[in-house]
Structures are given as C-alpha cells and as structure tokens.
C-alpha cells in the first residue's frame, strides 16, 4: 500500500497540481455561490420548479441532437461539426409548410395533423441533408488523418449554413403558434406546468425511445452497434459498412429534424444560424454523457439543460452578478471544457479523448 501511494505521488506532475487547484477553486466558488443564493432566498420554490421544467424541456431537445453526435462518433470516430446544420435545415424548411398552413387556416382547424406534417417534413429534410453530407463530404475521407475530416466538417457546416441563408434569406422567421400548446396545467400547491414544455418533454422522450429501440432491437440497429464496436470485425461478419454508416447519419438526422421542430416551437423563430449554439450545446451533452454512448447522450442532454436553466440563478445570483442569464452559454461552455479536462470519458463513456499508443 505504502509503495503504491509513493508511486502515485511520484507520477504527479506540476500541471496536475495546477489543474486540481483550478478545479477545486471552481468547486468552492460554485458551492459558496449556491449557499449564498439559497440563503438570500431570492427565488420561491415555484420558481425553482419552473427552472427545472424549462431545463428538462431544453435538455430533452439537446438530448435528441446529442444522439446524432454520439451515433456518428461511434461509427466514424469523428465530430460531425455540421450536425448543427442538419438540425437547422429541417425546421427552417418546414417553416414554409407551417406558414402555409397558418395562412390557409388549416392550422386552426386541424392543428394535430399540421403538426405531424411539419414534423415529417422537417425530419425528412434533415435526414436528406445528413445523408448527402456523409455521401459527398465524409465518405471519400474515411481513412484520412483525423484533422482532415474535422476541417471538412467545419467547411460543410459553413456551406450548409450559408446555402440556407442564400435560399431562405437572412431574417428571423416567426414560427406559427399552435394554440393547443398555450397555457398551463395547474398541479398541486400552486405549481404549474406549461403545456408546451410538457409536450416537448414527451415528444422528445417518444422519439428517443423509438430510436433507442430501433438501435437495440432491429437487425439494422445491431449492424450500427457492431460497426461502432469494431469496423473490421463487423465487415468480416458480413455487415455492409457503407450502408450502415449511411443509416447512422439517417437516424441522427431524423432525431435532429424532430428536435429542430421542438426547438422552433419553444423559441418561436427560425433563422440560418439557429443551429450553431444548440449544436455546440448538444455536443457538450454528448461529451458530458460519454461520447459514443447513447443513453449517455440522453442523460447528458437532460443534465446540461438543467444546469443551464438552474445554474445562472443558483451559482451566480448569490454573488450579485448583474444579469446572470447572459452567462448561460458561458456556463454550458465551461461545463464542456471542464468535462473534457477532468472526465473526458463523460459520465457513462469509455476513455477516448486521451488515447495512448
């Protein structure tokens, strides 16, 4: 035991110590801030409950998008930077369908059918974009050094973003409002839950469960999993690698398309750069949960949503920071960086970020 401890002591380097000091300082700041906020009692329990619900709704959207990152990372070991544009393309296109329904007052008379059609359009466009992306940009580079696909992905992301900007214009388009989602349901003791939030959480859960079942139960899903385990072995067992990778992109695209509509319903607007921030957040969620791990992506998404919605109030308000909500994104990025530094495996994943020979 003694020797083990000594050995451990010897293997610590100066950088490790610096990192621990930074980590510890952050932890102290966070805990102290939370205590200050809670003691000041600035928020009522009802407000905290609202934060949680908003966080869960937001988080389930992240979780859906994160699935795309995780699946692709699983099979190709690359960060699909352009996934945020897959997420944007669906709802942005479906906006025009929704706007048509709104003008022709179909939205008024058949809201559920319209919603379903909007979902279908969005999911198919996102799926198509994801599929083409893999075919055109990524497939020829499958065996290139790691930096090259990443840069291609950045390029593809730009191309898609500005292609849609050229097609649909630079402006923010206001998504039509579904009246059925207005209002709240009262729970007990004055707690209320927004119908929209409830719908988002349920719809996202439904899509996630469906996709998860698809991957776990079906033959195609098994092929996807086998490719992410070991490409060569899978190919020897008769799995068509190219097809499986395409399918992976398609699944990710469908999830992103669905998530995109939910996002557009919550924020009530679409524009060509709408994918960027949620994309990075979703990637953060995937890393947080352990990239390559599907349940991890879901868990990571929900956690990140909660952190973002509760975090600014809980950690920063105690210090009397002006407008803590502006730092919401900074908290998300901080989470990303901290996870990459201290636990690159994520909560449920394997160790991938630091690979030894």
């Amino acid at each position, binding site marked *: 035991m003694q020797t083990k401890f000594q050995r451990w002591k010897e293997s610590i380097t100066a950088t490790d110590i610096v990192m621990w000091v930074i980590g510890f300082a952050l932890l102290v700041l966070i805990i102290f801030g939370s205590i200050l906020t809670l003691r000041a009692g600035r928020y009522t329990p009802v407000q905290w409950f609202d934060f949680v619900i908003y966080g869960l709704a937001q988080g389930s959207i992240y979780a859906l998008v994160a699935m795309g990152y995780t699946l692709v990372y699983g099979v190709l070991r690359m960060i699909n930077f352009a996934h945020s544009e897959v997420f944007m393309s669906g709802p942005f296109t479906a906006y025009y369908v929704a706007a048509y329904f709104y003008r022709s007052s179909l939205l008024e008379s058949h809201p559920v059918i319209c919603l379903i059609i909007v979902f279908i359009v969005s999911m198919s466009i996102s799926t198509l974009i994801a599929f083409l992306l893999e075919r055109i940009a990524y497939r020829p580079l499958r065996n290139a050094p790691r930096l090259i696909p990443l840069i291609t992905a950045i390029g593809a992301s730009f191309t898609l973003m500005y292609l849609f900007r050229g097609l649909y214009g630079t402006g923010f388009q206001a998504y039509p409002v579904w009246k059925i989602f207005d209002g709240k349901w009262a729970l007990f003791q004055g707690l209320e839950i927004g119908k929209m939030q409830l719908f988002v959480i349920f719809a996202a859960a439904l899509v996630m469960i469906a996709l998860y079942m698809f991957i776990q139960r079906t033959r195609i899903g098994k092929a996807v999993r086998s490719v992410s385990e070991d490409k060569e072995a899978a190919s020897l067992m008769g799995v068509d690698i190219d097809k499986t990778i395409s399918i992976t992109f398609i699944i990710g695209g469908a999830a992103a398309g669905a998530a995109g509509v939910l996002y557009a319903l919550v924020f009530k607007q679409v524009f060509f750069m709408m994918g960027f921030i949620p994309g990075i957040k979703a990637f953060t969620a995937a890393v947080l949960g352990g990239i390559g791990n599907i349940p991890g992506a879901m868990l990571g998404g929900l956690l990140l949503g909660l952190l973002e919605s509760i975090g600014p109030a809980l950690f920063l308000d105690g210090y009397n920071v002006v407008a803590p909500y502006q730092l919401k994104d900074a908290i998300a990025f901080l989470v990303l960086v901290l996870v990459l530094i201290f636990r690159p495996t994520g909560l449920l994943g394997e160790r991938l970020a630091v690979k030894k*020979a």
Partner: protein
Amino acid sequence: MAVDGLDIEIEEKTIHSVIGPNGAGKTTFFNCITGFYKPEAGEIFLENHSLVGLMPDRIVRLGIARTYQNIRLFPDLTAIENVLVGMHAHLKSSYLGIILNTPFVKREEQEAEDEANRLLKFVNLETKANMLSKHLPYGDQRRLEIARALATRPKLLCLDEPTAGMNSGETQAMCDFIQSLRDDLGITIMLIEHQMRVVMGISEIITVLDYGKKLAEGTPDEIKRNPKVIEAYLGQGSAAQSH
C-alpha cells in the same frame, strides 16, 4: 497482456535478447522500461537511477532509446530531420538564442547536422538525407529508426523486432548491423524477437518470456536445450516426444 514477476538484469555492452511467443508480454515489458506504461509494482533501474514513474522523455535523457515493432518514424519529416529530432535532448539552443541566431546556436546546429550526417552514413542513408521518411523503402526506414534512436546517445538501445517483415538475406544484414552497433559504438542492446533463430546467432544472453513470466534465461546454448522453452515454443506435443 501483462507482465508479472519479471526479474531481468542486463549486463553492460551485451546483446541481450528477450524472446517469447506472440502475446508473451515482450512489448509490454519494453513499454514499462521506456515509461509508456507505469508498472503497478516493482522497480526498474538504469545504473543507479530508478526509472519508475518518470516520463518517457526523462528516461530517454537518462540513456534508454527504443525502436518500434511497426516502424514509427515522423513520416512528413526528412530523414535527416528525423535524426535531428532524436538529438533534441542534447541540444541546448534556447528560444531567444534561436530567434537571434547567436553564434552558439549556429555552431550547435552545424555540429548537430554533422553528427546527423555521420549517423546517416553509419546506417548507409547518407544519400537519402533529404527524402521524406515516408518515401523511403522499408529496410531504409528500419535503419533510419535505429539512427534516430542512436541520435539520443543511448546507453541501452531497445530494438523491438527489428527484423519483422524481412526476408532471410535482409535479416542477416540486420543482424550484422546490430552486432556492429555493439562492437563499434559500445552500446548495450536489448533485442525483442519472436523468431528464435534470429537471436541465437548474435545474443550473449537470452531471456524467454511466456505469459508475462520469465521462463528461462541463459546463453543461447542453454536456451536451446531448455525443455521448458522447447515446450513453450513447439507446444505440448513435441515436448512430450522429447521426454
């Protein structure tokens, strides 16, 4: 793959081979010595320095250099640059000195280049100094890797299957070359091999590993006659026959 309860002592200026079937833990053993893996227990000493827990770059500076089983040169650097990288630890040019191009830096660079050329000449690559290492033929790459390891001025040179993928003629040439490393430069050499016949000719001492444990140790003649070795190498059947 693991190494367990291994106790090896390497004499100065010998050629000491470590052999064993695939998966016997030879490369793991190498990685422990050169600092890529940290052994859970046990000690490694070079002369009187303990090596456990040191980073690989420290260990190189103390005098242990290595090559890789599946050649790992810097593919987009030229042959001479590869060798110069090996000399990194012994050069002292500072950041500022380099930018100001002080006389010291100039002299040191010139000396380094001369020595690199000398090493390339030693491995018969002097005409290919400016070729990218990825464009070199296989045998040249092997020798360049050794030249790069020599550039670190090692006391102990660890060669990981230097004859892998070579035909018998090339293998013989490599063996002669290894011998000349010891004879001409006076470097202690540790050689990993899984082919028995390669090491028999050139080693003074052979250690046989199997499943991470030391099976036998001795001169080539002793090893040849050791029944445990025969069993591990030729399988149970032939061992039974020899009884």
